[in-house]
């Protein structure tokens, strides 16, 4: 299988600290991949580099055969890379529906249309409504996004991320700050979306139960480097990985 995204010797340094160092990552298309590691391992920095939010100091990034190392985020979205954020990042003053609609309009390249009404954008409206149903937010559709519950805001963020119809989607702790029930709900949704939309998801997640039950492939990071990667079983048996998680049962 061909990798959907791969890096060569990727590095990002903040002063003396190597947030990401010499990372050679290969994400296979269609495999649900999780990135795990202790705090400060460089997981979020890695996602920021891959999505264009940060620019690397060394190395290269390829999306399929295209080098995208220094592309701006919005260009990466246009070729099929999308993401969500660790800290909630939605459009708070807009309604839930408008949040999704904006992403859909962007995908359809309709953003710059200055005179037509939003309602007249039939294709975009239909698609946005479909996505609202997919992420279980139909009832909240006309509420300002800032006023729905935290759990629903996370669902909304997921909705925005998939509304650009990505081939590859990074989710940075999609279930952070949620109670266990909501957590399961969100991750089941991610799984459902992965199956229905044929999107390759790469998630950063702390809940090991979730990671091991959901993932086809796991990448373990520590101190900016990739420590191990493989199938869940291989990772579970890896002594080094056990060591960094302080011998926890994983």
């Amino acid at each position: 299988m061909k990798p959907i995204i791969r890096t060569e010797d990727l590095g990002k340094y903040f002063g003396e600290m190597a947030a990401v160092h010499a990372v050679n990552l290969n994400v296979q298309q269609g495999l649900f991949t999780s990135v795990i590691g202790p705090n400060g391992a460089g997981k979020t920095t890695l996602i920021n580099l891959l999505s264009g939010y940060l620019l690397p100091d060394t190395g290269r990034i390829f999306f399929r055969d295209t080098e995208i190392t220094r592309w701006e985020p919005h260009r990466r979205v246009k070729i099929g890379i999308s993401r969500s954020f660790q800290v909630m990042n939605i459009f708070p003053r807009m309604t839930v529906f408008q949040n999704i609609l904006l992403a859909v309009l962007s995908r359809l390249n309709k953003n710059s249309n200055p005179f037509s009404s939003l309602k007249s954008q039939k294709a975009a409206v239909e698609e946005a409504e479909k996505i609202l149903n997919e992420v279980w937010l139909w009832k909240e559709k006309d509420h300002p996004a800032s006023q729905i519950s935290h759990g629903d805001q996370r669902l909304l963020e997921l909705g925005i991320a998939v509304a650009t119809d990505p081939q590859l989607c990074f989710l940075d702790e999609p279930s952070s700050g949620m109670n266990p029930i909501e957590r399961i709900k969100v991750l089941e949704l991610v799984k459902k979306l992965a199956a229905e939309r044929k999107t390759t998801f790469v998630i950063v997640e702390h809940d090991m139960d979730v990671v091991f039950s959901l993932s086809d492939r796991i990448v373990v990071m520590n101190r900016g480097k990739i420590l191990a990667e493989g199938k869940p079983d291989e990772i579970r048996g890896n002594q080094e990985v056990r060591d960094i998680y302080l011998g926890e049962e994983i």
Partner: protein
Amino acid sequence: MKKLALLLLVVLLGLLPLFVGKYTLYMTIHIMLLSLFSLGFNLLLGYTGLLSFGQAGFFAVGAYACAKILLAAPSLLLGILGGVAVAGVISLLLGLLSIRHTRIYFSMLTLCFGMMIFSLAWKWRDMTGGDDGLVGIPRAPLEVPGLFRINMTPMENYYYVVLVFTILAVYLFYRIVHSPLGLTLQGIRDSETRAACVGISVRNYRLISFTIAGLYAGLAGALLPPLESTVTPPVAHWSHSAEPVLATLLGGIYTFAGPIVGAALFYILKDIIVRFTEYWLICLGVIVLVLVMGFRGGVVSMFYGKGGQR
């Protein structure tokens, strides 16, 4: 209901010259100019999240360009459209430099560019007349050769020209902010990073917003010289840039009608306060302060309740 009220307002404004004197017409024209000026300003602040302190610069470019055209070729339409076009070009160019930054850096940059235009108006005597300004600008007839020619000498006639331009520009503005473009700008205002991560080129859209704001400032500016028959450097001064800021804060930044209501309030309050004291800005400042601290959404949002964007 809303449509009916709007229709009523337009009819009222249309019939206004029948009932009121020159002074009220003159004031109403100024309210309309400030409305256009503030609407453009609020596209940047309320819809895109950028606070510009240099909008008077583009107002002045529109005003001076219109004045120069009218002095050379007395055609009202040519003067106004020419003024708008020049203001648009200048705002596009300065926008390219300004939108590279946001927040306070953007505000300071726009303040600088605005004051640069002020200095030009002040010092470039051959072009602008220096501190004397441009004088004797004719209120040229509204004319399309071969079609019609309307004399503009009576104030009422010019009032109707301004009214038509204002209605058209407000309608256009309504379409813009309720279009995909308007939604995109609001997305950038709400979260720049999120907008970029759904595939929006934040910089390009900021530039579009900046240019439209400049066009509206330019239109307001271009409508001024035929009214006053002079243009002087203070129209470019930063204190003039503060007028749309105050009007918008008075009316409400997150509402469509806020800047328009604010512009009317600005002139009405000014008109009342100057009867008692020449320090009217202090009183207005206090009123704005109370509004900002007490009703953050401005006057218009008091009628809509919390958080509604109209």
